[in-house]
């Protein structure tokens, strides 16, 4: 158990360093959600939205960047293949699933830069007073949301690996998740037939828990749903990655692009 935890920590740190190598990429991961946050905050301001609405919009916009950073998950296995490290990972004694999890966690960690950036942007550029009513609950909500989004990325990675242009699939999922999970628009404002889909997505509950923690409401139910879905994603992804590796070995297609 401690060996697995050490492996996760070391691999997470290694991938985080690798992802932080390009200042230009880092800049984009911070700035990209800021563009959308700015547009949305300007719109709410033009509609004379109240303080509570503006704070809820900032919280949702802050969480957007975590998902944006994770959309790269779709092409993460493709990247390993291109670098020639996929065979080494599959051949390693560690489970392939355990090896993918720190990659996803490193992506969501990069997304945390933008979470902080959007909060600062909202506070200092738009002058929105963000008072977190329950700091411990807020920190727990961030941790659970980041974990669940990472696991959604993991599920995406193992599902998209068979597509040569998996990056396009990831990029195409960025905005739908923003819309479906209530990052910028309350889920209740969406058509009724869409809402069950929102409930199956962990970020929906994560964003709801973040907003509840800021407002001082109880977030336990939302956190449990978010965590439960995150664990479900791991289980489904683990089965999927096991089948993927077996199939690739049987058909000798692991290195094919």
């Amino acid at each position, binding site marked *: 158990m401690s060996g697995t935890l050490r492996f996760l920590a070391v691999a997470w740190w290694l991938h985080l360093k690798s992802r932080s190598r*390009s200042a*230009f990429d880092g800049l984009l991961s911070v*700035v990209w959600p800021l563009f959308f946050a700015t547009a949305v905050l300007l719109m709410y301001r*033009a509609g004379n939205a109240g303080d509570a609405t503006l704070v809820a919009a900032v919280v949702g916009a802050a969480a957007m960047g975590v998902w944006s950073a994770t959309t790269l998950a779709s092409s993460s296995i493709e990247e390993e293949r291109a670098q020639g490290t996929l065979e080494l990972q599959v051949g390693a004694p560690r489970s392939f699933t355990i090896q993918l999890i720190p990659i996803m966690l490193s992506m969501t960690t990069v997304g945390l830069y933008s979470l902080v950036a959007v909060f600062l942007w909202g506070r200092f550029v738009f002058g929105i007073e963000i008072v977190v009513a329950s700091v411990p609950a807020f920190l727990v909500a961030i941790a659970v949301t980041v974990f669940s989004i990472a696991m959604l990325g993991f599920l995406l990675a193992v599902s998209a690996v068979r597509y040569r242009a998996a990056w396009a699939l990831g990029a195409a999922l960025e905005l739908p998740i923003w819309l479906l999970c209530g990052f910028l628009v309350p889920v209740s404002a969406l058509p009724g037939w869409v809402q069950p889909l929102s409930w199956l997505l962990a970020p929906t509950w994560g964003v709801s828990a973040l907003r509840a923690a800021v407002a001082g409401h109880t977030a336990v139910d939302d956190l449990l749903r978010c965590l439960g879905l995150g664990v479900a994603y791991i289980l489904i992804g683990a089965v999927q990655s096991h089948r993927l590796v077996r199939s690739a070995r049987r058909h000798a297609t692991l290195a094919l692009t």
Partner: protein
Amino acid sequence: MIAALRVLLIGGMTSYRALFNWLTPWILIPTFFVTPLVQILLFAYVGRVARVGDDTYYLIGNAVQYAAIPCLFAMGRTISGERRQGTLGILLASPAPRVPLFLGRALPVIVNGAVVCAVALGLGALLLGVRIPLDGLPLLAVAIVVCAFSCTGLGLLTAAVALRVREASVLSNLVFGVLLIFAGVNVPIASLPGWMSAVSGWLPLTHGIDAARRAAAGASAGPVGELLVQEAALGAGYALAGLALLAWLERESRRMATLEVM
């Protein structure tokens, strides 16, 4: 002259076909049709919740802005893709004249941008229940083509910078984000701070989106045409600046041996 035309048309089309790995044409569906549609819906719903603007406003703003995606990214990849495949040096060592070489790459992209915008507009109108009067459609179509042209002009400029910058796609994303805020896509120019609206006037799409909205509202050709002339002039200006910068950076990259630096 005939050689230049061949470079313009055949070279441009060959480069365009190589852009998206045509073995997997499905890549076009999420990139060009799903994402713009979702952006339209996202901002239309934000507009409804914020009680500002109407669905038509967000439909036209976001659909026209999505013309920028192929125009910016394809032009940037013209350089970065050639470099990655190791053909950039060969391309620039060839005697082909540079203006038709790069303008040829721009022509299919303009068509691509216009098609993306038209499809997003049609599907978005269906989903949101927006009705655009038939008599406004011809002017709207002209506005879309002019916007695709002006964005491709800006794309030529980013393509030139891609000779020096490694991450052309990141640069295109940043430009796309700037257009989202400054070009009146979702927030009226009049409600932006003074310095931002001053910048807006010098960006592609600002006049084009305004013209498209007026055309959809049934405005006459006079005021719409005026805005489109401004949009086209800006696009031409950006294209000329892009070609000039390409020429200069090509010379510099030869001098400093940085052409193939990744």
